[in-house]
């Protein structure tokens, strides 16, 4: 090893080189991860402000805050930003980039240059999409359904092209991760000894590589249709609007798993560490990850039960969708099995993980209402769907992300955050989340359609409860922002392995050196071998 042990706690990836340029040109996966994190959190802030405005407008019936067309732009930007710029890259590109090579025991990802390129591709896509904000805005909804998206007078082309460009970043990251996992595992790390977070990223990457090109083509076709009127989706030009929905969901259903699988991976790391016990059913969880990834490609039609799709297609898509529930259930039960007879530690990551399991179960179960044909007819396109996917994407992906952020924060910042505010924030976010979104299930069953700038007076009470909930979530997030920044500036120094975890990244100093490890790690035990002294308290 080039670095002597004397350097051990002096030189790290943060102070290895100095200046803004050394960051912008970096090939270090950890720095790229941090840059992704900053970009994603900034977009999250913007998308979050839009969400607060949406809820504020819905506090009372009538266009109380903004006009209906402005409202339509608000929910379009909220959705597009949160999906394409935040949730999709949130865990893989930000946390995954930092953690994956270290968990593998490698010095970096397989293609560091691609890695940096993918970041700039992502930023350019985001910039193109955001440019529309300064033109006429966009009001198509993040789903861009045709023929509305082709006829609207707003700047839909920019967002279509932006999402198209961001897709390439997603593909590049996916390829990079797959090759890294195949080629860079530390000596001794067979497939059966790979941490489940890596299995999750592997499954995610496969979906990113296979599904994203379809989205790219679809968005490009829609953009071309707008610009030159090629007539693929607009019936006035001889096209078929329902075809767009098939293409769109062929990507966007698997994309749901791009968003949730990595979060499940985080939970599979956090629960054993804070239970001081091996993960229950390692093989089953790894297989379930691939089961979900595979099935996710053939269920897209469940978004289209009332679109005009044939009865037979509805039959098949409903049937196949049912099978997604099984591997998902296996995971939830396995996390419970991991807690059983453990020694449970309630640090912030674990609180988020427990919140995840509860909220995600509701998200999953309400998914069954939408997979079941008859119930879907009434519930689709109502607030029930809005509530369902927020339980999965916010309650699932975002809580998973927060669990991961709190879990790996000491490793990559070298600092410890204060436990008490972290616990309060975890509780605020979990409670606020349920107060915001649970009433929306009832609103949906009662018939309130989604994407409504205005609503009937009988829906007022439930909408108000939901809006108040959004304030609680916001308070929780502000608290997180506050104590994490405080920790960065004034936090106590973190030890190398504050959670006494067994995966490789914790064998390196906090923060890790430029090339990750002082001594090249060798794997002898499994990642969850909590036996004897290793199972001792944190």
């Amino acid at each position, binding site marked *: 090893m080039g670095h002597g042990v004397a350097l051990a706690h002096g030189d790290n990836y943060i102070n290895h080189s100095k200046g803004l340029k050394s960051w912008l040109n970096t090939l270090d996966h950890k720095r790229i991860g941090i840059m992704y994190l900053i970009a994603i959190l900034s977009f999250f802030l913007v998308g979050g402000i839009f969400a607060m405005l949406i809820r504020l407008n819905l506090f009372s019936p009538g*266009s109380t805050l903004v006009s209906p*067309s402005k409202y*339509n732009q608000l929910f379009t930007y909220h959705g597009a930003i949160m999906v394409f710029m935040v949730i999709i890259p949130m865990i893989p590109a930000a946390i995954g980039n930092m953690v994956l090579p270290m968990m593998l025991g490698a010095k970096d990802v397989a293609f560091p240059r691609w890695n940096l390129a993918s970041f700039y591709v992502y930023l350019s896509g985001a910039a193109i999409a955001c440019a529309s904000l300064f033109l006429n805005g966009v009001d198509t909804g993040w789903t861009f*359904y045709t*023929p*509305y998206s082709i006829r*609207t007078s707003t700047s839909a082309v920019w967002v279509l092209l932006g999402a198209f460009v961001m897709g390439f970043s997603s593909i590049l990251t996916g390829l990079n991760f797959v090759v890294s996992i195949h080629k860079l595992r530390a000596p001794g790390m067979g497939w059966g000894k790979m941490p489940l977070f890596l299995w999750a990223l592997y499954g995610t990457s496969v979906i990113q590589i296979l599904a994203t090109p379809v989205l790219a083509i679809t968005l490009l076709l829609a953009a071309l249709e707008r610009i030159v009127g090629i007539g693929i989706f607009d*019936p*006035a030009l001889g096209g078929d*609007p329902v075809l767009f929905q098939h293409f769109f969901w062929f990507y966007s259903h698997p994309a749901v798993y791009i968003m949730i699988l990595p979060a499940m991976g985080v939970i599979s790391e956090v629960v054993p560490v804070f239970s*001081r*016990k*091996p993960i*229950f*059913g*390692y093989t*089953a969880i790894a297989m379930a990850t691939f089961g979900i990834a595979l099935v996710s490609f053939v269920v897209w039609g469940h978004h289209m039960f*009332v*679109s*005009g799709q044939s009865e037979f297609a509805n*039959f098949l898509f409903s049937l196949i969708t*049912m099978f997604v529930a*099984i591997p998902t*259930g*296996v995971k939830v039960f396995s996390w*419970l099995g991991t*807690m*059983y*007879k*453990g020694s*449970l530690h*309630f640090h912030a990551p674990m609180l988020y993980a*427990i919140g995840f*399991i*509860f909220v995600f*179960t509701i998200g999953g*179960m*309400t998914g*069954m*209402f939408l997979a*079941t044909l*008859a*119930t*879907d*007819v*009434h519930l689709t*396109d*109502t607030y029930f769907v809005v509530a369902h996917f927020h339980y999965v994407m916010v309650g699932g992906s975002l809580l998973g992300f927060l669990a991961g952020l709190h879990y790996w924060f000491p490793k990559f910042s070298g600092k410890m955050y204060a436990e008490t505010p972290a616990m309060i924030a975890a509780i605020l976010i979990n409670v606020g989340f349920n107060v915001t979104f649970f009433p929306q299930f009832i609103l949906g*069953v*009662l*018939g309130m*359609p*989604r*994407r*409504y*700038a*205005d609503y*009937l*007076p*009988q829906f007022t009470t439930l909408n108000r409860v939901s809006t108040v909930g959004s304030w609680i979530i916001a308070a929780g997030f502000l608290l997180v922002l506050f104590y994490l920044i405080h920790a960065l500036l004034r936090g106590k120094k973190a030890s190398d392995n504050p959670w006494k975890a067994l995966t490789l990244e914790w064998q390196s100093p906090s923060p890790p050196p430029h090339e990750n490890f002082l001594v090249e790690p060798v794997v002898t035990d499994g990642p969850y071998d909590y036996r004897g002294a290793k199972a001792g308290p944190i």
Partner: protein
Amino acid sequence: MTLFFALVASAFAATVPVQGTDIAGAWDVLYWFLIYVSAFFVFGILAAMIYFAVRYRRQEGKRPKFIEGNTAVEIVWTVIPTILVMIMFVWGWVVYKKMIHAPLNALEIRVIGKQWLWQFVYPDGKQSINDLYVPLNRPVKLIMSSEDVLHGFFIPNFRVKHDVVPGMYTDVWFEAKIPGIHQIFCTEYCGASHSGMLARLLVLKDDQWKEFLGGKKIDIAALSSDPTFPGFRANMLGEGMPAVSQGDASAPVSLVSQGKTVAQSKGCIACHSADGSKMTGPTWKGLAGSTRKFADGSEGKADDAYLRESIENSAAKIVAGYPAGQMPVYKGLFTEVELAQVIEYIKSLK
């Protein structure tokens, strides 16, 4: 105590809309089944986590148990959910079949969605806007299309919904069991006034329905005192909402004879006969509902979708025995209402 349970029960009941049809009743049973299954798992998992959190919380001197899995348990929690989801699937399919297949004797009303209003065209040629009049206790089938972008037609009290797609016919059906007013929503995002694209469903008792058919104006105020749907609103103000008159209940000519006029004025009768004689094009007599043979050897049923396609773009399917390229392309030359009129006319030629 009984009062308490009665209160809880009514609170739960208030979370679903009124059961306006028998199918809504069947839907509700399935819905509550799903709620109970979900509640079982959600509360079960929550209870387990709380129990574990207390029982297995970190304690001095207590060691966690080293368990890596348990095949028997894993099989159980794979098999039981599999059985449950198969029950959901089959049950959902059975109710869904009832929801989508209208009885043959259903009264057909045409629905046209456009930004941002609903237009209804009745068999006797009447038209109304944002007010749909239907008879009580009689199956009604709505044949829907859109003049511009996607819309969605939704009656929560009846648990029916379907997208309304330009260039295509979709349908919903119901048999209303509760007279009075029910809410109709647009559920597919369609632009600025999507949330203002509301309509009223007016379910009329026998005598009122006869009055409606007879061209008398229905006293809607009297209907709306009906307690079945509180807080109803026909139309919310939105940008670009056209000012529409509610209901035009006086139209003298039936849809079929309007269609005949359209067929004459658009020149169809130069090539199509109504009496079975062969002209440049096939006769319309007995066309609707028959099985058509095409030049490429395939076959198809002459339903609304086929008639629509043949009119707008006849080259899509060429009837066997007739040359291609004879019939002009009419795409874009018909309004949705005119299309409905001609199709009804063709369907009347049995």
